[in-house]
């Protein structure tokens, strides 16, 4: 086996040093009542050639672009990833290293993550960003737990237009804690009904996603004021990071903690993971943040460098009193996001975000012209809700056969929205493909 370098002679020599008769004999300290297993029943080893064939077959059994036209976002977005990004992020010094516990030989990862933290903080309008979390849902959940610790209050208010799967994760984490989730309802224009915040008593945090699950841009400024009036921390979240190439940052509108998913920043969708949990805060909360942080430091000779810092918040020091149990995070994804943001630059991110907006506006207008209903009036970014004619399901299935995925059906997430679909168009959607979609749904 090509990953096992030992020759038979070496094995005998080493067994001799250890004082064991055989490889099996190495396990003599395992008591007989523990050492009784049958041989593992797995397929026999495949050659690299056969493995390729098997994996080609499995991966060929998936609907992906360019064969399929997938007009679906909902937390996982199709953006172009430059070859330069894939190439440089694949350098084995980045890929095959561990957490930078030995900073002297990890300065590459450390500076890269420091740069990610900086760019991520600027994108979100925060003072600091953590080195990464698993995904948007876990980052948002950790943000809420942080607010609960900070305020010592037991309830949080979460908009119904936060990604439904993020809300499911919050519910899972909160299960054993007794913390209560109050749902802020959706208003008729596709944005959260912020008046519901008034009169909420004793809440630790208000959490609003913008652009929300329907793609609508929320009024974060008003939400921040209302949350402040209830002495609750104002948390915002996002699933489409590209939006903030164009939209006012949550921090500039009053958010104190921002959580989101950074998959859009140069990461493949990869059937949903690994993505990138982004989490930032204003500087006054930095010592309550969960997860790793990289900071600047100076070495004994006065040279500048970087280290993991403020680790007394973390589980390996504080154990059960830590601000989170997180250890491995999504470091390489954060580095990839830094590479992607650097590739676009501020000007490019703006241009890309504008293009996303324009593509989706085009599709929305064409569908409207073709007689489809756009039920929500609020401004959207690169996805939006369409109400198709009653009983559209059969048309949807027909389109699947034509290799078109006409958005995400919303009824299983919002039962009142039968025949409503969430559609997305990014810079990768060509006018030709969008015209085809419009033609096909109106057949």
């Amino acid at each position, binding site marked *: 086996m090509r*990953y096992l*370098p*030992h020759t038979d002679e070496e094995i005998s020599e080493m*067994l001799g040093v*250890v004082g*064991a008769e055989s*490889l099996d004999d190495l*396990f003599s300290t395992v008591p007989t009542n*523990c050492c009784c297993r*049958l041989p593992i029943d*797995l397929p*026999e*080893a*495949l050659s*690299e050639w056969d493995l*390729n064939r098997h*994996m*080609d077959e499995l*991966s060929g059994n998936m609907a992906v*672009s360019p064969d399929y036209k997938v007009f*679906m976002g909902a937390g996982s977005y199709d953006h172009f990833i*430059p070859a330069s990004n894939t*190439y440089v992020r694949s350098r*084995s*010094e980045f*890929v095959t*290293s561990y957490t930078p*516990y*030995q900073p002297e*030989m990890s300065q590459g990862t450390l500076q890269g993550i420091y*740069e990610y933290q900086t*760019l991520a*903080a600027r994108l979100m309008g925060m003072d600091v960003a953590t*080195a*990464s979390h*698993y*995904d948007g849902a876990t980052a948002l959940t950790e943000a809420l737990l942080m607010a609960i610790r900070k305020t010592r209050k037991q309830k949080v208010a979460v908009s119904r237009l936060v990604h439904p799967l993020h809300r499911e*994760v919050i519910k*899972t984490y909160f299960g*054993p804690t007794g913390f209560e989730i109050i749902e802020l309802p959706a208003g008729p224009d596709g944005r959260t009904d912020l008046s519901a915040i008034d009169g909420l008593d004793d809440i630790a945090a208000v959490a609003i996603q913008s652009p929300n699950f329907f793609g609508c841009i929320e009024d974060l400024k008003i939400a921040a004021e209302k949350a402040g009036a209830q002495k609750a921390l104002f948390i915002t979240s996002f699933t489409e990071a590209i939006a903030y190439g164009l939209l006012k940052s949550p921090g500039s509108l009053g958010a104190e903690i921002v959580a989101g998913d950074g998959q859009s920043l140069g990461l493949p*969708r990869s*059937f*949903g993971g690994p993505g990138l949990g982004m989490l930032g805060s204003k500087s006054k909360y930095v010592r309550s943040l969960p997860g790793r942080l990289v900071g600047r430091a100076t*070495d004994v000779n006065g040279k500048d460098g970087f280290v993991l*810092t*403020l680790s007394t918040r973390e589980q390996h020091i504080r*154990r*059960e009193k*830590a601000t989170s149990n*997180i250890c491995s995070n*999504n*470091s*390489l994804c954060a580095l990839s996001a830094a590479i992607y943001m*650097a*590739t676009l630059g*501020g000007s490019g*991110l703006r241009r890309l975000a504008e293009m996303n907006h324009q593509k989706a*506006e*085009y599709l929305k207008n064409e569908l409207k012209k073709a007689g489809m209903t756009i039920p929500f009036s609020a401004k959207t970014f690169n996805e939006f809700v369409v109400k198709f004619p009653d009983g559209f399901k059969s048309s949807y299935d027909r389109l699947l056969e034509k290799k078109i995925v006409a958005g995400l059906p919303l009824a299983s997430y919002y039962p009142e929205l039968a025949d409503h679909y969430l559609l997305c168009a990014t810079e990768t959607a060509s*006018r030709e493909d969008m015209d085809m979609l419009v033609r096909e749904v109106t057949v």
Partner: protein
Amino acid sequence: MTEKMGTTGLILKEKLLWERGKTGREGFSFPRQDVDQTPMDPEFARDDLDIPDLSEVDVIRHFTRLSTWNFGVDTGMYPLGSCTMKYNPKTNERQASLPGFAGAHPLLPESLSQGALELMYNLERYLAEITGMDAVSLQPAAGAHGELAGMLLIYAYHKSKGNQRHKIIIPDTAHGTNPASAALCGYTPVPVKSNERGVLSTEDIAAVMDDDTAGIMVTNPNTLGLFEENMKEVADIVHAKGGLVYGDGANMNAVMGIIDMKEIGIDVLHLNLHKTFSTPHGGGGPGSGPVCVNKILEPFLPVPRVEKKDGKFRLQYNRPDAIGRLMTFHGHFGIMVRAYSYILSMGPDGLKKASQLAVLNANYIKEKLKDIYHLPFDRPCMHECVFSDKHQSGNKVSTLDIAKRLLDYGFHPPTVYFPLVVSGAIMIEPTETECKDDIDQFIQAMRDIAGEAKENPELLHKSPEKTKVSRLDEAAAARKPCLAG
């Protein structure tokens, strides 16, 4: 003295990203503008995004230079205890980047995602077979997330019995993530000490296990690299009082094909695909932490579950007892592809052999260094061995000095100061993918350093000297944190 691996080369300085670039440069190829330009309402638009504009060459050169300041498994031996820094096979990267996997949307209709679902279904079966457990969920994102999943399952189990418990037993050798994960479920950790043999004793467990204790979290082999020889008896005590046994599978690399985890009394176990199953650590992640359970806990596993019916794969959401969802989508699918590829490349015999050789390498190092470094538990070990700086501390040389000196020799140091039960611990896990030559070189480096500790301790205090930076002032960094530029 032998020739050292570590040498000096030309290392280039590199500015911070935003100290490079000029407004107007670009590194991205934009598609043709084929729709009307509908501007965003200025009320919503920002004008403060301060990210530098760089060319493609700027970006490549910047990050390439950064990468040269790093050390990875591909660079050299990385015997970081408890982290299983084995070789990361390159074919795995090929498989994960196949367009059908990398480009797949997670909410595609099931009929359009059969390939990914089949892979997940198979991987669950394989991991169940390797561990001996009955069912697996691949959803947790990393080891600590798998631990949290395990705790939530135990919580859900006790809740279903109508009798929630409030404590959990955690040995003093446990990873810090264990108590932190238990705390998220409101369980108060009850610490127990390992005995003079470095393992749990049945008397200590019996003394603390009661009917308000939800169970025990055991790492086996434990973080001293020793097999918990009383495992079965410990499990019996916990089960007799209605508790459950959680296994931290971080050290599974020692026992593939050798130990059946269900058989030794474990009810729920997490695995680290980024340790045992060869997926790269990426400078800290992403990992993947599947959770494996026995039949009793199966109904509580997170949703959705992958099922096979009439030859088709589907996602099952309708599971009333499930703890819920742990991530937005299905977990770190890209990591699962790599682990699946590894298991198929190794086959059953290869996996068993990997564990045997991991244990052989660790015992070989232990034998070759124990005359010169203090070995607190002089017994056959599993996949890692733990020394201390006791013999060197007389010369005012600490574990930290030894670790830093290893950098100059061209090795990544072992895990240091963990487990906490050994003062000045040096925890060495070579893994099976290191060949005897490299291990011999590492042993020689450790022996040379022990010599230097006696003759020239100052050399160790000043190390490392060949790295890009020397020792950094971590205390000052934490006092006045600078976390963004």
